């Protein structure tokens, strides 16, 4: 039997409705043409499908379809936005602001720019995982050209106040990029209202296929980018490469469905998430990581103190979940996100991320609750730290033999 899937924040299965439109864009009897072909009907039909998909993406985030650039996914969109803006505007300044808990696509793009001579300010989140507009405002300097802050955090699911941060950036005339890979179909997005200049999306976190994403690039006032991929001049020169029609129509359909169903879906996810939390919070020493209110409904990141995450995942082999502990090397590094919240390493090592999605049922949740309770009890019986906690030992006074 396959485990029950609780890792929707890692990726989602493609919705069957999405798979259907994708399959119609592949074979000889389908819409297989190259959308850049101008001389025959195969190209025209493919182009039409792509423009319709572009409209669906634009509708979800309330922008003009001409502001959507297709990419291979959110990683590429983040790279294009951050490096593209930095390279284009570097004569105005070489300072960029981001946070310590961004996705690696943002962190590593910024690190690359540091190597190229740019200066990056890495903001600390509050202990609840949020980045405040005040912190952004305080970090802006005359030579700041870009702020990049994520909408929803992939590990802890907290939702930043993008509108407030956007207002700060607009007032200070600094471009604002938002990684929205985790928020489409979960949180309302209005790029106009939020004062966002660039926004990265991907399809596969919202029941579309992997390998396709988009970047929103504001037209008024116009945001300029230096292309990172050169070639046929597709996507108004911002991103060359033949457009993958089947992937694009898949993303379009996924975003169209998201717009129609997200509010009802969110209510359902919230009920399931609360059921999961209610089921486990009765145990001792259980902590929710990240703000519980300002958070997408499908995410529960939770630490079970005195139980190590990898052994917990092993005990929960019937559940497909992820852990904040990466015990795979000699230097056991817990999640950089949880550490940046100021959490101690023990708790970071003891964390699990459940992410609930379109195909999660109440029965799945009840099964997970029973499994988690059993596993935590079993592992605490095995844990010398649990013994010490029960004996009232003050952990701060223990001398550990670190290794």
């Amino acid at each position, binding site marked *: 039997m396959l485990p029950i899937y609780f890792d929707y924040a890692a990726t989602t299965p493609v919705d069957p409705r999405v798979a259907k439109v994708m399959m119609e864009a592949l074979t000889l009897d389908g819409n297989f043409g190259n959308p850049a072909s101008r001389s025959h009907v195969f190209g025209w039909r493919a182009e039409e499908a792509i423009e319709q998909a572009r409209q669906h993406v634009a509708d979800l985030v309330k922008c003009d379809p001409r502001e959507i650039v297709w990419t291979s996914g959110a990683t590429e969109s983040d790279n294009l936005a951050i490096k593209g803006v930095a390279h284009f505007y570097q004569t105005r300044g070489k300072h960029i602001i981001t946070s310590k808990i961004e996705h690696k696509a943002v962190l590593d793009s910024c690190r690359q720019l540091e190597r190229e001579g740019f200066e990056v300010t890495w903001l600390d989140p509050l202990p609840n995982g949020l980045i405040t507009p005040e912190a952004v405002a305080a970090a802006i300097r005359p030579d700041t050209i870009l702020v990049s802050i994520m909408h929803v955090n992939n590990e802890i699911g907290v939702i930043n106040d993008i509108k407030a941060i956007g207002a700060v950036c607009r007032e200070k005339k600094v471009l604002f990029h938002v990684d929205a890979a985790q928020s489409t179909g979960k949180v309302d997005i209005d790029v106009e209202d939020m004062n966002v200049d660039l926004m990265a999306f991907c399809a596969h976190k919202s029941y579309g296929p992997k390998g396709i994403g988009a970047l929103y690039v504001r037209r008024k006032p116009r945001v300029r980018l230096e292309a990172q991929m050169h070639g046929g001049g597709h996507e108004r020169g911002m991103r060359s490469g033949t457009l993958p029609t089947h992937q694009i129509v898949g993303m379009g359909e996924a975003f169209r469905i998201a717009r129609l169903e997200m509010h009802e879906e969110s209510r359902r996810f919230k009920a399931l998430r609360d059921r999961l939390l209610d089921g486990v919070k009765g145990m001792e020493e259980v902590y929710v990581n990240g703000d519980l209110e300002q958070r997408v409904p499908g995410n529960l990141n939770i630490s079970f103190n*005195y*139980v*190590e*995450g*990898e*052994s917990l995942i*092993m005990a929960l082999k019937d559940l497909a979940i992820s852990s904040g*502990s990466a*015990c*795979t*090397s*000699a230097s*056991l590094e*817990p999640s950089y996100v949880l550490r940046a919240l100021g959490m*101690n*390493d*023990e708790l970071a*090592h003891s964390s699990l991320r459940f992410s609930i999605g379109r195909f999660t049922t109440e029965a799945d949740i009840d099964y997970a609750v029973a499994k988690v309770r059993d596993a935590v009890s079993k592992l605490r*019986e*095995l*844990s*010398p*730290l*649990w*013994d010490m906690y029960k004996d009232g030992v003050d*952990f701060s006074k223990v001398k*550990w*033999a*670190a*290794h």
Partner: protein
Amino acid sequence: MSYSNKVLDHYENPRNVGKLDDSDANVGTGMVGAPACGDVMRLQIRVNADGVIEDAKFKTYGCGSAIASSSLLTEWVKGRTLDDAAQIRNTEIAQELGLPPVKIHCSVLAEDAIKAAVADVKQKRGLA
């Protein structure tokens, strides 16, 4: 990460889980690792008048390989003399459990634990 059947067996049916009375002069305790590193092992042995380990108990906070390494160790040390037990090498544990390279540190920790437990009981008995 896939685990060997031996690791899974020790993880699912850990041997000799528990605690011995540390105030007993014949009990040695080795506690190694640190919570910040993701693993802590507590290994305890009780030694008879002839210096032979007659009981061993463990509790481990850590990944499946760490739990299996300490569980296996409690089986191995029973019936051995203190000096003999202190000779157990991490490579033997890693080999027996089929640990992958990234999990070798778990067997190192188990070796440290038995050495620490042996040293503790020797000190208590005034042999060190």
